[in-house]
């Protein structure tokens, strides 16, 4: 789960990481009042959960309260990469002397958290990492010990941070690491961490991802999930604990298991078609869940064929079949289905579907070929 910039900064503030003075505004009037209160240039930052906000016009420096009102009225209610902007973070402008990158995430390879720093922060950090990897300083953290002072100091030395800022940098690093572990984050970034013209370190932007599997320990964030960046289908899918991602093709897929779902998309592509979505119903899904998944797939206007590929282990084929029948009763659709059921209670499932007169297949390959052929027919017709 991704947190908003303002949420990340609330966390920074609680952990004594310096941030610019700032407040949220939902209306141009509020933006103006905050600018008046701060009595100087302010930055307006759209609070949307997408990358590349700045380049898309979501971050603007203004000199006066009236300009704040004017610009805020333009950004609020507009869309950035299709996400509606509902709130702005209004912050005091900061004089920047240098932009540093500082972040941490889990390294799957070692199972450790890697803490990363670079003297050249900002939006181009990934390119810097690719072109000049020697400018990136990294240190691996023993999760049982946490980020030690000496490790933060080694990073400070490696990025040639001025010595009078080492103490401040070490504190910020350890405070961010503490937040990262306390919140069960899988990523915490300050980018840029700036050296101001008055020679202080200030966190100008922040990004925190929380581990979905650990949210039960952080109910305060469960309530705060921002659904505005999600489609109604994705919201519906979360409600039923379905893993759903919308894609650009026209073959709706319903599969049990993430790996098999990907393999199903792959074979569709291999046979010349394109999947409309990734949808994993997980293990042991009942008829209700299957029906909900089909409703989500069928609500996508791009879907012209549905491929159902179930390999029953914990999941029972008869339950899936009942879910299919149920959804066909609920939703009146002419979209053709290709169904392939194998594994637990396969025969019972096939019997249930026999009356529905659906296209069936014995192998994944056959199912994919049929679905792709059907999707082409539709295209031609």
């Amino acid at each position, binding site marked *: 789960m991704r947190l908003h910039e303002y949420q990340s900064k609330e966390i920074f503030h609680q952990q004594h990481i310096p941030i610019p003075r700032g407040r949220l505004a939902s209306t141009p009037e509020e933006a103006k009042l905050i600018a008046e209160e701060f009595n100087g240039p302010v930055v307006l930052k759209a609070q949307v959960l997408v990358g590349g906000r700045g380049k898309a016009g979501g971050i603007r420096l203004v000199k006066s309260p009236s300009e704040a009102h004017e610009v805020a009225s333009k950004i609020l209610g507009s869309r950035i990469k299709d996400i509606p902007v509902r709130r702005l973070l209004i912050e005091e402008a900061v004089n920047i002397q240098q932009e540093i990158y500082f972040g941490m995430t889990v390294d799957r*390879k070692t199972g450790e958290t890697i803490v990363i720093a670079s003297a050249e922060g900002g939006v181009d950090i990934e390119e810097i990492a690719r072109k000049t990897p020697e400018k990136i300083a990294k240190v691996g953290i023993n*999760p049982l010990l946490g980020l030690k002072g000496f490790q933060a100091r080694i990073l400070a030395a490696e990025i040639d941070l001025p010595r009078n800022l080492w103490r401040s940098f070490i504190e910020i690093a350890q405070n961010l690491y503490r937040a990262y572990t306390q919140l*069960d984050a899988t990523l915490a970034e300050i980018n840029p961490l700036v050296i101001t013209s008055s020679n202080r370190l200030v966190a100008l932007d922040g*990004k925190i991802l929380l581990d979905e599997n650990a949210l039960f320990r952080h109910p305060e964030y469960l309530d705060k999930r921002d659904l505005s960046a999600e489609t109604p289908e994705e919201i519906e899918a979360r409600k039923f604990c379905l893993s759903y991602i919308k894609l650009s093709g026209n073959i709706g897929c319903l599969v049990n*298991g993430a790996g098999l779902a*990907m393999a199903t998309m*792959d074979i569709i592509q*291999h046979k010349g078609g394109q999947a409309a979505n990734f949808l994993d119903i997980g293990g042991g899904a009942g008829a209700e869940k299957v029906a909900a998944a089909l409703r989500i797939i069928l609500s996508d206007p791009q879907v012209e064929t549905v491929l159902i590929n179930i390999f029953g282990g914990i999941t029972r084929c008869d339950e899936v079949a009942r879910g299919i029948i149920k959804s066909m009763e609920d939703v009146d659709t002419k979209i053709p289905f290709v169904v392939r059921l194998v*594994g637990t209670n396969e025969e019972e499932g096939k019997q249930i579907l026999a009356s529905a007169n659906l296209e069936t297949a014995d192998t994944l390959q056959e199912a994919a070929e049929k679905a792709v052929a059907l999707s082409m027919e539709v295209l031609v017709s």
Partner: protein
Amino acid sequence: MSILINENTRLIVQGITGHEGSFHAHQMLTYGTNIVAGVTPGKGGEWVLDGKVPVFDSVKTAVDVSGANTSVIFVPARFAADAIYEAIDANVELIVCITEGIPVKEMTQITQILKGSRSRLIGPNSPGIISPPYTKVGIIPSTITQPGSVGVVSRSGTLTYEVVYALKQAGIGTSTCVGIGGDAIVGSRFVDVLSHFEGDPQTDMVVMIGEIGGQDEEIAANFIGTNLSKPVIGFIAGQAAPPDKRMGHAGAIIESGVGTAEAKIAALKDAGVKVASYPEEIPGLIENLRAIH
């Protein structure tokens, strides 16, 4: 011989009285697995599975009494890390964790503790291990496998079933099939299992089923190229998947240039692995290899 589990396996089931644990313990017992005990805190003293298997309050007691060397974990995600620690503490040699949804923080810590321990962990979020025809630890359906000489190792659940089933349909049997689990951090990687297959006389060929994300397949490719004498057939799921947008700059910096299906497939091919385009292509590739050798 198979790898990891065989007729010397003495299994305890952690969470044996739960819904999942109870169902799959029955399946395993029916298949032939030697289940010597179950563990459910607070239910020590009961007997389950038609009175055949005693239940203990702790893994330590279960191991002391039964001489178990292997454990399979079916407890809910919130308690699964504690269950793993308990098994490590009791020096269980092989721990197979079926539970999915264990937080990353717990797994990073468990990874450290495993290093200094006498235990090997498979999973979490693993379908388990099956060595046909008599031993299975986990939830892989037994009907889709038959004994044979092809080792299978996979990060997926149902995709593994798909592959093993396709092998069986083509008359090809499995020595051992190991699901290492789909989570970001797991106890054993491809390399760990591949090196077991290398040392197993029954296995003459290995099928490795990977996924996009992480670097495990690349590391495995390097290992295959330098240390594995047996032929390997590979498959990587996710060639048609959209790129993962969620790992931030830090993730991109760490994993730069690896993790995509293309990178994994290229690495495997460089190591001499035959890579299938879709799961059901695998039996044909195996038969081609057998024809050559």
